[in-house]
């Protein structure tokens, strides 16, 4: 009797403890506030200082806190006034004059003036400021001057069609906050930003969450948000993000293709959440390095064309992205005006590829299964970033198809920092990566021959006509003329195949149905116009 009691007792105690624990914990869980937009970030931003930040998370958070001088219309993608009521561009396209609103206040109540814009520009160009990546965009600006308290003028050294985008998008920061004698890079305002936008920064619980509160005095009444708070939760694992969403602790979640096709289909899910997809500028590619002495085959256009015929892109899209991607064959946004839609997709065609390889002189003379020419075997190493599961699977598919065509490929995967090192040193045969693009694309930095040495032309692409087009297009402000030029440029790239262009992946989003007025534009959703259903 006594024995059995003592044996059972601890179990009961533990069970009782556990129950009370769960109950008490459930009871104290804060009720969900319907007027809060719950967001997730897969990592914390390093800083919220707009000039020194280098990650994408900063932009997501600061997008709610700051306004730009001018912004693109969601539908037309043309610029319209924001902090600047109007702007003038001189006939020689060198000076840009902005007239600022005079009724805008920073979140701490101080007025927003031309001094803030000028100060921002001075900090970006200040060598002591840790804004290297940003500074590159502003190095062609000769001068920024304050004409009066609400007028600023930027003067470019050379005409450039993206100048308006850069000066109009300058990440303005408050001078009165930063200019207080403290070190700019370590300034505390970098962790509690003060902006002019629809939301005010409230708190940042390191590695947990960032909280924003509505700016009740927001000047732009048209864009006055309907919800009162934005909460960014930091959740590193994408599987968990979806679980948290299903549990009702998130309002918006980015989905992976597999989650889109397998885990978000049920009726229960559909009743509570809506899903949206759109395609942002950018593409994935395989780059063939033309400057490798040990891989001379990539220098030959025919070989590169043959390789593109050996990449089974549709299969890759189906297997890696579950069909949620658009095939692309050029360096522009698939929905952009620069993209030449007359060019057909390059199909998977091993027979044609073999023909091209034979024409180029690469054939298997010694019957070892690998093609050769002038004593060089067609063997190379494919460099992929280790963190990328899709690059890994792509490499496996490619290896098999190349092998069947008599090409031997080794796969080498490297951790990101080491990978970047190899890329910058041009120390690779072939590589797979993605580029993030923009609405008005300037291909100069990736494709111009001057960028082989120190720019992003990693594969060593060089074509005189392409060089000429890129140089000219930079100074062309007429969109139609630029379209013609870039359409032709696309043709050259299509013919040369310096990259094998793969696809543009879909951006996938699930969101809670309690939000109304959700529009999906070409560039995605605009959270600020969402309304909370009562």
């Amino acid at each position, binding site marked *: 009797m006594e024995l059995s009691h003592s044996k059972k007792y601890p179990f009961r105690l533990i069970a009782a403890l556990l129950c009370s*624990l*769960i109950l*008490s*914990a459930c009871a*104290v869980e*804060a009720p969900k506030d319907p007027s809060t937009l719950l967001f997730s970030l897969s990592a*914390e931003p*390093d800083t919220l200082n707009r000039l*020194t930040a*280098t*990650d*994408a998370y900063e932009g997501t958070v600061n997008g709610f806190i700051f306004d730009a001088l001018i912004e693109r219309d969601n539908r037309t993608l043309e610029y319209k006034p924001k902090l600047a009521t109007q702007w003038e561009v001189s006939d020689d396209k060198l000076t840009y004059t902005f007239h600022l609103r005079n009724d805008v206040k920073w979140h701490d109540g101080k007025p927003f003036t031309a001094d803030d814009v000028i100060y921002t520009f001075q900090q970006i160009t200040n*060598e*002591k400021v*840790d804004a*290297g*990546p940003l*500074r*590159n*965009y502003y190095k062609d600006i000769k001068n920024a001057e304050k004409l009066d308290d609400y007028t600023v003028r930027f003067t470019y050294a050379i005409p450039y069609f993206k100048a308006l985008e850069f000066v109009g998008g300058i990440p303005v920061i408050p001078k009165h906050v930063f200019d207080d004698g403290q070190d700019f*890079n*370590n300034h505390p305002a970098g*962790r509690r930003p003060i902006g002019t936008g629809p939301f005010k920064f409230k708190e940042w619980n*390191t*590695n*947990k*969450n960032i909280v924003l509160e509505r700016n009740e005095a927001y000047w732009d009444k048209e864009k006055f948000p309907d919800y009162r708070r934005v*909460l960014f*939760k*930091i959740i*590193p*694992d994408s*599987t*968990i993000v979806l*679980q948290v969403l*299903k*549990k*009702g*602790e998130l309002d918006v979640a980015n989905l992976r293709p597999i989650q889109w096709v397998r885990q978000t289909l049920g009726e229960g899910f559909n009743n509570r959440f809506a899903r949206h997809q759109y395609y942002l500028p950018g593409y994935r590619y395989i780059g063939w390095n033309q400057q490798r002495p040990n891989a001379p085959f990539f220098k030959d256009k025919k070989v590169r064309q043959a390789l593109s015929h050996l990449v089974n892109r549709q299969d890759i899209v189906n297997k890696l992205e579950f069909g949620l991607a658009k095939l692309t064959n050029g360096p522009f946004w698939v929905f952009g005006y620069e993209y030449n839609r007359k060019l057909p997709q390059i199909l998977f065609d091993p027979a044609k590829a073999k023909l091209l390889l034979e024409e180029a002189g690469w054939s298997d003379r010694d019957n070892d299964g690998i093609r050769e020419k002038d004593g060089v075997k067609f063997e190379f190493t494919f460099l992929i*970033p280790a*963190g990328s599961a899709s690059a890994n699977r792509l490499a496996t598919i490619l290896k098999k198809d190349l092998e069947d065509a008599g090409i031997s490929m080794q796969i080498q995967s490297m*951790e*990101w*920092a*080491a*990978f*970047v*090192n190899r890329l*910058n040193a041009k120390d690779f045969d072939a590589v797979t*990566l*993605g*580029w*993030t*693009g*923009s609405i008005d*694309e300037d291909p100069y*930095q*990736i494709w111009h021959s001057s960028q082989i040495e120190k*720019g*992003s032309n990693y594969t060593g692409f060089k074509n005189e006509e392409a060089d000429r087009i890129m140089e000219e297009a930079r100074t062309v402000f007429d969109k139609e003329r630029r379209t013609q030029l870039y359409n032709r440029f696309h043709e050259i790239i299509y013919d040369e195949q310096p990259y094998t262009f793969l696809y543009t992946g879909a951006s996938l989003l699930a969101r809670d149905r309690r939000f109304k007025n959700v529009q999906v534009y070409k560039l995605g959703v605009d959270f600020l116009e969402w309304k909370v259903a009562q």
Partner: protein
Amino acid sequence: MAAYIVKRLLAMIPTLLGITLLTFLIIKLAPGNPVSLKMQGGEGLKAGQVSQEATDQMLKLYGLKVDLPPEYEAWIGRWTERIHGSDPKDPPHFTRRALKWLGENAIQYKIWITGLAQLDFGRSFKDRRPVLTKIAEALPITLTLNLIEIFLVYFISVPLGVYSALHRESILDKVIMVLLFILYSLPDFWVATLLLMYFAGGDHLNWFPLMGFMSEGAQTYPFWMKLGNIAWHLILPVTVMVYGSFAFLSRFSRANMLEVIRQDYVRTAMAKGLPRRKVIWRHAFRNSLIPLITIMGALLPALLGGSVIIEQIFSIPGMGKLGFESVLARDYPTIMAISTISAVLTLLSLLLADLAYVWVDPRITFRARQE
């Protein structure tokens, strides 16, 4: 004894210096650097204009590009000339570069060690916050997790091991062994995800929270509520941390116990007619613990280290994630601080283990150790 401890502590200083110097050089030799990562805008490339000039400016700003004293430059010149002959058109790349690299890193190490002498670990390259602040945020979380884990693991494994030893080859002994080895072979990321899906997701049971260390706003709760909230959050992660560790430790204590139980003095004690319980717990068990002390030596640094996988899946911002992310981002000051602190702890726990031997085992004395 005091003299022994002082001597050991003093001997730690050169060891520690050696460890930090080696760590520093290894980190710097690893390919990649924080500046080129920042210029690329994180994972996934952005089409931005990367210029050498801007990169150099940033390297200077982060103290990764330092000017060598002109005397040293001249010295390098003389040495390369002596080794490779004086052909100015054919600069002997390797020697010159190696000497230059050594010189630059010696200066950077000197700056770092000067900071360390004032307990200043510098600021993180990643977010420019003081490294010590970052560690102070992550450490309590990891310490809590690890203390609970270690307590549970020892509390469960050692008795299991003793039981298995006393009932050697019995069915229960075999069942325990098989069970523990099954647990040992389950991958933790898989178990963690399953636990979350079935016990915390909205789809099945909804008993536990999905993420984090405590609920939002729990900082303001009264003490007991706060403790309950943290415990509620930690049940799943601790389960995942603990289950794989039973096998090793219980086998270890089973083997120790078996060894001790066969000794003559145990047989003598039994023969003397002492009660079985007293023989086992007083004489055999205490002696079987001695080898455990060797393992304890690794405990202190283990307290500091976190599991990257578990912290990632459960969204717990502990030391594992901090260390892992610093390595990926080549955040040199943070990596150096973490490895220095764990080096100190390792050295200290080795000393503690040695002291514990003396305390537990009367055959070992300080005099013998010193000789």
